[in-house]
């Protein structure tokens, strides 16, 4: 948001100088007076004239290159929130506006099959990058099952909430499998909203989607980012035994902030139990979790949380920066620097996680396929040697 606002202000300055350039020659023709083109600028104070002369021109905006990575270290803006303040977005969190053929193709496929993505519902900043696909990477999307409306209202999440969301679409497992097969992905992440209104929390629906998918394409790697099913371990078991490769469930934040950040029906102990149980019933599965930084946690709390997770035999960890999605949600308490994220990555590797993806824009399923496959390939290589 901050970027767009700044862009608008600068844009006005750019068009003013452009207009002056356009007016100049015309005036010269009309009045055949060389000095007349400067008549418009004579009313401006000197410092404004200098500002416009030395400031950005249209070329800078057209080229689209606004994030100079070498300048991150020089960023002098406030990173820790003071009372009554709302922090500005630091430069390393600015992303491009999503456009492009792949992005549009994905969007229309999703709509035509009545599918939802958490990418759109939770306003992920990486949507352009993941959906657009890279030069070598195929586009990825995290499909959100069981509708776009959740039964809980957590203070960090902008997914729609309702007490009684619309009933489940019974064709969804089949349609999802069909869409994913169409896209030819080799790694897919399935997630869902919380459905406390359904008896098993939607576990059966989830499991069915995974098995349909594996039936259509047994080679595809499936990661499921599940809700906590209100601690119902039978539901966890149903999903864990459905044939998936990675079982993910996010603890979201340190134990001390659980009450503030998440819905009161969720808590750390319950989430940890979900992860432990998945491993218990399906020892081959890889478990994964995610923490958001910047909500007011201390470094000691983050470190002890990471230790607790490792002790629960969680294999993969992702750490990302919390970004306030709408004004009804929690303000960002701190913008953690990219260097700090790199530090946590080191800590994670030292503690023994299979991989630790850590960065301001990293999310639970960001490049999940890439990390997973890269790791798997490396591990296999060392085994051979």
């Amino acid at each position, binding site marked *: 948001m901050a970027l767009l606002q700044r862009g608008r202000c600068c844009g006005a300055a750019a068009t003013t100088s452009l207009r002056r350039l356009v007016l100049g020659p015309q005036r010269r023709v009309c009045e055949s007076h060389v000095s007349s083109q400067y008549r418009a600028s004579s009313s401006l104070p000197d410092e404004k004239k200098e500002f416009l002369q030395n400031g950005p021109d249209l070329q800078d905006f057209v080229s689209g290159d606004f994030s100079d990575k070498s300048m991150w270290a020089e960023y002098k803006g406030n990173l820790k929130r003071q009372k009554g303040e709302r922090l500005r977005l630091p430069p390393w969190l600015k992303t491009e506006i999503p456009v492009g053929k792949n992005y549009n193709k994905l969007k229309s496929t999703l709509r035509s099959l009545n599918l939802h993505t958490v990418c759109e519902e939770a306003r992920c900043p990486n949507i352009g990058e993941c959906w657009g696909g890279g030069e070598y990477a195929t586009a990825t999307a995290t499909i959100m099952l069981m509708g776009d409306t959740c*039964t809980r209202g957590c203070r960090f999440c902008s997914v729609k909430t309702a007490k009684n969301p619309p009933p489940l679409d019974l064709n969804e497992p089949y349609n999802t499998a069909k869409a994913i097969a169409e896209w030819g992905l080799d790694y897919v992440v399935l997630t869902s909203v919380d459905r406390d209104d359904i008896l098993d929390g939607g576990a059966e629906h989830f499991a069915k989607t995974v098995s349909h998918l594996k039936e259509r394409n047994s080679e595809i790697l499936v990661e499921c980012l599940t809700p906590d099913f209100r601690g119902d371990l039978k539901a966890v078991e149903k999903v864990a035994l459905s044939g998936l490769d990675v079982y993910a469930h996010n603890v979201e934040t340190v134990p001390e902030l659980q009450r503030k950040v998440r819905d009161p029906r969720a808590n750390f102990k319950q989430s940890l139990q979900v992860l432990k149980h998945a491993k218990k019933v399906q020892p081959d599965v890889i478990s994964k979790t995610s923490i958001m930084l910047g909500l007011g946690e201390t470094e000691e709390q983050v470190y002890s949380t990471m230790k607790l997770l490792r002790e629960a035999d969680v294999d993969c960890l992702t750490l990302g920066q919390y970004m306030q999605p709408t004004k*009804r949600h929690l303000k960002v308490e701190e913008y953690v620097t990219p260097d700090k994220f790199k530090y946590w990555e080191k800590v994670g590797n030292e503690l023994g996680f299979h991989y630790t993806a850590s960065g301001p824009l990293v999310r639970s399923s960001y490049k999940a396929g890439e990390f997973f496959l890269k790791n798997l390939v490396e591990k296999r290589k060392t085994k051979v040697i």
Partner: protein
Amino acid sequence: MDVLLFSSSEDKVTVHFINRDGDKLTAEGKVGDSLLDVVVDKNLDIDGFGACEGTLACSTCHLIFEDHIFEKLDAITDEEMDMLDLAYGLTETSRLGCQICLKKFMNNMTVRVPEAVADARQSIDMSKNS
């Protein structure tokens, strides 16, 4: 016709919010607006208020009322009670702001926004609801 253009000051209600830092925020709403509407529409600085958009699926709009106002509020429904029970720092005069609509007798009332979480220095919060 003329009734439509006439903006009555009789339906305006002033509410004072004491936020978690102890600051007093004053806002004006219309009779019939919920307290959540007032907070959101007037951009009041209350962190994480109304996460579920007023659908009785969270307790982030928990507010504490003055005794004499609390007595006159409409009876609480079971759905509101279920969510209110999960709120942190519950008091005898607590209600969910999204369910309380402005009425004339509320003019100039003061509501308090309770703490959202226990002191962070306390150890792991094991919720009773697990």
